Structure formats: structure tokens, C-alpha cells
């Protein structure tokens, strides 16, 4: 499939051109490409540069060195910035700090109003976006009447209304309760599967990362692993070395193997684990 996002030897420093402040080198020589329809989970401990990486995808930040292409557009082309932001929407961690309007549907309309879309079309796209995230009944509510998970779905709808090819989410579930986390993840998975929207999903919940079809691990501003969840989580030692957890069942399998029991690598789901345990015990 077509490559939607491409990083070519990208390095980035904060305060690169500032005179007063020390430059902070955050990304180092990152090369990465994301295909249309991918569901990529990005893992890494705090300060490893995940957010910085994400902000390169919709031209909030431009690389100090190297190039980022989004749908064939070089993100350093300033005149095309809004083109890029329409193609790549971004959702942030705190649902409270990204809703602008006092009514749900007005908030979802915000991006389209900025883009100068005509009012009847805004209405249609807002309704469609709200239905996609299952928040249509709440269209006339005020954001502060909603739960965290609902607010985050509204934020997603606000991005979907732009009909982007890709949606980047920077720890969207970090501040949610388990119920809210499930709602958000379900929404994203259905978007990806049904509409083919490319999803880049930064998270530190391993059980969420397992649902992706690709996992990228960032450490110290470099990509240290980039593969299927199964392959990435097989290397438990490496993940632990960079301060990351693995899903509980993967950990269990790892400990069992370490204890000398014959157990396969890269177990991701409870069902798989149960099946293997039965085999091990029965055999």
C-alpha cells in the first residue's frame, strides 16, 4: 500500500535557533514510514520523544535535519501547513484542554469552520463524525457534562470531521478510567478497520498496544524496535531495559520460560496464554 507518512533521517532540537536557551536534542536520525491503513502503536517511557515525534507528523514541528513527508508533501513547506493538518489530525492527552466550544456539535464543527467549509456541508460532516464515535445523542450537551471518555470521543469527532487520512493520538487514554479507555480504543479500532483511517497511537498501556498491527518503540529519541506486536513483545528483556512493561500474560510467559518451562515466545492475549498453559500442564 501507499506510504502516507515518511520520516527520512529526521533529527530535532528544541530551541534550535534560540539565543537565550540551550538547545535540547530530542530526536536522532529517525527513519520511519507509515502506510495508509496502518494502526501503529508508539511506545516509550516519559521523555523519550514520542510527543515530539508526533508533532512532526502534522507540521507543528519541523525537523532540524532530515525531511518529513505527509501524503507526498514536505512538512517544511509553510504554505501547505493547513493542507497537512487537514490530512493528519491530532488528539491530545487531556480531553478538557482541547475542546474549544461550549456545545459538543459546535466543537466538532470548529475545524470545518476554520477551513471555510460551507454551512450545510459542515452540518452533514459534523453529524456523520458524531455518529462514527457514537456521540450523536450528545450533540447538544456541554462538554463539562460529559465523562472523560466521552470528551475524548468528541475530540476525535472534531478531527474526523476534517476527513483526515491519518489521526495521531498522543496518550489519549492516559487520563481516562478503564471504561473510557475501552470506549476510545474501540472507536479507533473501528475507524481503522471500517474506514481505513491510518492511526498513530501513542500509549503506555501495553494491553492497548497489543491491538495495533505495528508497534514502534522509541527510546532516547531513537526508534529501537519497529515490528508486529508479537515480535516486539517477544523481546521482553529489551523492553524492560528501556523502562517499559509488557502485557501481563507476556510477562507470565517470560517468567515461566525463565524458570525453565517450555513456553512459546510473544504471547499477547489471555486466551492464547490459557491455551498454552493447558498444553504445558496437560503434556
Amino acid at each position, binding site marked *: 500500500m501507499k506510504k502516507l507518512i515518511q520520516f527520512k533521517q529526521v533529527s530535532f532540537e528544541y530551541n534550535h535557533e534560540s539565543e537565550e536557551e540551550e538547545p535540547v536534542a530530542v530526536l536522532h536520525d529517525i527513519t520511519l514510514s507509515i502506510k495508509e491503513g496502518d494502526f501503529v502503536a508508539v511506545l516509550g517511557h516519559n521523555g523519550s520523544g514520542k510527543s515530539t515525534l508526533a508533532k512532526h507528523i502534522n507540521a507543528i514541528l519541523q525537523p532540524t535535519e532530515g525531511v518529513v513527508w505527509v501524503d507526498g508533501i514536505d512538512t517544511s513547506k509553510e504554505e501547505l501547513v493547513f493542507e497537512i493538518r487537514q490530512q493528519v489530525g491530532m488528539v*491530545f492527552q487531556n480531553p478538557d*484542554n482541547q475542546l*474549544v466550544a*461550549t456545545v459538543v456539535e459546535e466543537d466538532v464543527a470548529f475545524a470545518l*469552520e*476554520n477551513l471555510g467549509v460551507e*454551512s450545510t456541508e459542515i452540518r452533514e460532516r459534523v453529524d456523520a463524525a458524531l455518529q462514527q464515535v457514537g456521540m450523536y445523542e450528545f450533540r447538544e450537551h456541554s462538554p463539562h457534562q460529559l465523562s472523560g471518555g466521552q470528551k475524548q470521543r468528541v475530540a476525535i469527532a472534531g*478531527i474526523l470531521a476534517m476527513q483526515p487520512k491519518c489521526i495521531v493520538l498522543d496518550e489519549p487514554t492516559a487520563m481516562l478510567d478503564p471504561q473510557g479507555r475501552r470506549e476510545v480504543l474501540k472507536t479507533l479500532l473501528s475507524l481503522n478497520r471500517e474506514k481505513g483511517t491510518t492511526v498513530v497511537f501513542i500509549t503506555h498501556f501495553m494491553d492497548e498496544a497489543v491491538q495495533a498491527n505495528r508497534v514502534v518503540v522509541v527510546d532516547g529519541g531513537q526508534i529501537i524496535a519497529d515490528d508486529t506486536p508479537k515480535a516486539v513483545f517477544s523481546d521482553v528483556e529489551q523492553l524492560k531495559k528501556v523502562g517499559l512493561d509488557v502485557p501481563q500474560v507476556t510477562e507470565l510467559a517470560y517468567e515461566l520460560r525463565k524458570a525453565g518451562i517450555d513456553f512459546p515466545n510473544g504471547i499477547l492475549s489471555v486466551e492464547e496464554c490459557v491455551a498454552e498453559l493447558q498444553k504445558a500442564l496437560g503434556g
Partner: protein
Amino acid sequence: MLKDISIGQFFPGKSIVHRLDPRIKILLVFGFIITLFIVRNLVSFGLIILFLTVTVFTAKIPVKTVLKSLKPILPLILFTAILNIFFIDGHVLFRWGWIRITEDGIRLAVLMIIRIVCLIIGASLLTYTTSPIALTDAIERLLSPLKKIHFPVHEMAMMMTIALRFIPTLIEETDKIMSAQKARGADLETGGLMKRAKALVPILIPLFVSAFRRAEELALAMECRCYRGGEGRTRMKQLKLTVSDWVIAVFVTAFYIVGILMNLWIPALF
């Protein structure tokens, strides 16, 4: 406790008052305030009070709510009343030591109280029956001629929208911080003015820090959604004046004019 604040609250509904175009509504409220301060005879005040009552009932706003909106200005009302009753010269009705009450004082006090109360109720009716979005939209549209002299009309409306959006969030946060500080033994309720003011510092500082962080994140989120100021921006809900908007505007304005003209024939209260 902070959640009890009812000023600026919106009561959704489908009444004529709710459906009236917000621009007309704002202008009519302005007209109302002007009328209120020109009118000085009892009959007109009677009409104004009748008009307010009818509006409150048409809009189906609970009378209790309307009365509650007066609570915060009670001290102001008392202060005005006292000032007028005791310090206006004229025909003395009652004297006790240096205290004296004059007839003119009482009249002026009554006049001012009616004015203040009607003013507050009239203005609250605007916010009770108009959603914040419609209100800011209307202000943006009404002020749009000022763009010609480079007054930042859109930016101002956007600031109002964001302020309205974040008031509940910040109130909630203040409550949380207050409970957190109380749990650590902060005493917010006793002591003199200085002591209480000092006790507020550990509440205000975290609140400001968080407000700035929120502002930064919101700005980023707005940028991500292609925000670039008012230029070329469209709206999902466009304001359109209907015939009934015009009819109501004409009727109410005529009513104001009649009320004002009555000054000519009916003796003034003061």
C-alpha cells in the same frame, strides 16, 4: 459551593424568547436598560414590571431562579436604599437626633431599587434564554462594523467563547484545589482579612499554573484544527433574521417608546 453561581447560566428551551434572534435580543435588552433609566413615572414602571413578568413566564424560567439572581446584588440594593433615604434633602418625615428621613429620599430610593432590580432581571433574562454560543456569535456580528477600524472583533468573540467554555472547568478545579489544601490543614474560613487573603495564595498559584498549561495545550489543539483567526472562517449555524424577529423587535421598541413618552403626561416619581 462555587457551583451555585447562577449568573450567566443558560436554560435551554423553545419559547419565543429563546428563539428570538440573539442580535435582536441584545439590542432589545440595551433598549430596555436605556428606557429604564429615562422613565420616571410609576405607570411606566408598572408596565415595565408587567413586561418583565410576561417575559419570564413566556420563557418558562422558574421564578425562584430569577429571584436568586438578585441575591448577589442585595448589598448593593440595601446600600443604595440607605444612601438615598438618609442623605437626600427635602420634606422631612421623621427625625431622630441627626438621623432624618425625607419624603424625596424614600421616593428616590424606591425609584433606584426598581431600576436596579429590573436591570438585573432584564440582563439575566438575556443569558437565561440565549446559549453562550449564540450570544458570542451575536456580539461578533453586531460589532463587525468595528473591524473597519481594526478592532479585533473576532478575537474578542473567540476569547469570550473560550472563557465561557473554561469557567466550569476552572471552577471545578478551584473546588478540587481547595479541598486538597483543606485536607492538608489549610484554614480558609476563619481569621481576619489579611489572614484569609494569605490563605488564598496556595489556591491561586496552582490554579494559575494549571490555567497557563491549559491555555498552551488549547492553543496547540486549535492550531491542529487549522485555526488561523477570523479570516475566511464560516459558521455551521448562521444567524438569519426572520419575519417574526422583526415583528417582535418593532413591537417591543414601540412599547419602550410609549413607556418613555408617558413621562410627558404622568407626574414623575421624583
